[in-house]
């Protein structure tokens, strides 16, 4: 096992996404799913990517994997650099070596992401065989399969079983085992627990967290569950209508609005504030749940100004006219006109 933990928190980013825009083009319409986002991730770090369904989280992940739907998905601009190498410029054959070996992905629904006609050991072994640079023998591969299965808590005796013989939580364990089999440097977990029972969710999240810590893998945790973000992430990025509207360390983003210690009355993007406001707080029983009114804008027809403006309670005339740029304070960054004149926040370069 490579000693990855040593390199933790070094300055060179492992993954650096800059100004990434992704479009889905069909003859009917163009869906602008991701619009100029940028973020970076250092080794061993975990980034939480949060947002509503349709905000562009999965698209971002697929773009990183180079798995956008061939016929329609299309990166309009931007770069995705993995250890300094722009993945978007790699030929498909090189990209295949990246997938599974350097970046692995756990998909949302374990029920459908395993091939129903192959036994689980075949499916895990396949990942190993595809990236078998050190010429492991069939036997060594089988041993490794047993090892990763054990790692996710599945007895080796069940390795010849087929996916339908496992429960949902167990299947997700298999998917995780498959993703981690080649010890990737980056793991993208796309809502890994959404499809699972609540009790199983906690188990799986704990396991992912444990394995990440043990293997020192960097991770992008895509979720709309803020609880999971709080439990697992170093950094959080909030996505809305294809843009990152707020990025920061978990502590920054999770700092509740108007809580003790804040200089200004508003520390968050109104959407983030709304997002957090919609979660019932255990501490503050009196507060009522305040869901955000309205719907996300139609991605085929984004508004001219701020994407959130139509739903925003603090909207100014400027919000409808001009798309806000990002304002930063330390590692915390917010994309909202409200922060333009605020103390301690300054305009950031794109």
């Amino acid at each position, binding site marked *: 096992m490579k000693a990855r933990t040593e390199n933790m928190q070094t300055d060179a980013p492992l993954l650096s996404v800059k100004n990434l825009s992704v479009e889905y083009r*069909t*003859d*009917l319409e163009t869906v602008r799913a991701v619009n100029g986002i940028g973020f970076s991730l250092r080794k061993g770090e975990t980034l939480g990517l949060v947002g*509503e*369904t*349709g905000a562009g989280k999965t698209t971002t992940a697929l773009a990183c994997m180079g798995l956008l*739907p061939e*016929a*329609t998905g299309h990166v309009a601009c931007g770069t995705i650099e993995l250890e300094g190498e722009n993945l978007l410029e790699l030929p498909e054959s090189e990209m295949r070596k990246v997938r599974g070996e350097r970046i692995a992905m756990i998909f949302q629904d374990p029920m459908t992401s395993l091939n129903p006609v192959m036994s689980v050991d075949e499916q895990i072994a396949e990942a190993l065989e595809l990236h078998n640079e050190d010429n492991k023998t069939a036997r060594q591969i089988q041993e490794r399969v047993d090892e990763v299965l054990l790692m996710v808590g599945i007895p080796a005796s069940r390795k010849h079983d087929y996916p339908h013989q496992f429960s949902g939580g167990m299947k997700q364990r298999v998917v995780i085992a498959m993703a981690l089999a080649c010890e990737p440097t980056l793991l993208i977990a796309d809502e890994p627990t*959404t499809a699972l029972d*609540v009790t199983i*969710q906690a188990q799986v999240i704990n396991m992912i967290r444990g394995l990440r810590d043990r293997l020192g893998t960097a991770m992008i945790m895509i979720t*709309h*569950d*803020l*609880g*999971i973000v*709080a439990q697992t992430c170093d950094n959080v990025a909030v996505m809305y209508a294809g843009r990152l509207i707020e990025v920061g360390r978990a502590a920054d983003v999770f700092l509740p609005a108007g809580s003790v210690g804040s200089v200004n009355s508003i520390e968050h993007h109104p959407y983030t504030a709304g997002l957090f406001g*919609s*979660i*019932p707080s*255990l501490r503050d029983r009196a507060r009522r*749940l305040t*869901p955000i009114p309205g*719907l996300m804008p139609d991605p085929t027809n984004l508004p001219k100004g701020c994407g959130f403006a139509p739903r925003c309670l603090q909207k100014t005339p400027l919000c409808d006219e001009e798309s806000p740029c990002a304002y930063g304070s330390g590692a915390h960054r917010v994309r909202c006109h409200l922060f333009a004149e605020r103390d301690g926040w300054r305009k950031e370069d794109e």
Partner: protein
Amino acid sequence: MAVAGVSTFNSTQEEVLIFKKESRWKEVIRRLKKDRLAMLGLAVVCAMILFALLADAIVPYSVALKMNLKLKLALPSWAGGPAGYWFGCDGYGRDLFARCLHGSRVSLLIGFATSFATLAVGSLLGALVGYVGGRLDDLVMRALDIFSAIPSTLFAMAVVAAMGPGIVNICIAISLTNIPGFVRIVRSSVLNVAEQEYIEAARAGGASIPYILVKHVLPNTVGTLIVQTTANVASMILTAATLSFLGLGINPPQPEWGALVSEGKEFLRTAPHLILFPGVMICVASFSMSVLGDGLRDALDPRLRN
């Protein structure tokens, strides 16, 4: 905390779904409109139906029956044949263009009538057995097993032989052979739909079985039904042509594409235009119905497109 987060987002999702459902048909039509091949198919099908309806205005039916044996097997006018006979003449010196045109009436009628008959009987029976299930389901499905164990052409032949020729009997025979397959398709999609929660809800609300079937179950299988029916029109026209070939088609001298092709068979080598024109008609009709069906399927199930 986690629980609440999920529920919040789900409520938003549901809104989206409802919003989508209202405009579903509009969207399907919009998608279909963008599918050029399917629109071409639709245009051709509509044109054929229009021509069939206006056949008498274009060329009177009597022209399709008027014999002139001096013109037996005459070539099309553009290929050196007598003037005015665009498709040439058949083995009795009848105007082949008029026969193809008026033949479209019968062929399309057979195609559509049998498809709709199959649709009506098949979907009602399929919905009923799929929804009611139990002993009725067993009984009907075993009976259908018996029907589908008999080769369909032979079954149709025997039925036509027993009932005698004629458009109605042929339609009955062809429909009978197709109903079992249709019932199976509808039944299985009804079984899928019946598991959905809104059916449970309707049931819990005390709705009667026929009401649930008509109001809730069938509308939700409509996509499958439309696709299957458009595909059927093409195959039914072909089945009718096969029956004609086996001598069990509609009675002469009424023109029908399949009958025209099988009449032209003996002149394949001496006067190939006799088989060419009705053959092309069958091809075009079946081709355009098929691409229309494919387009509808894609429009109804956008997953299949990109």
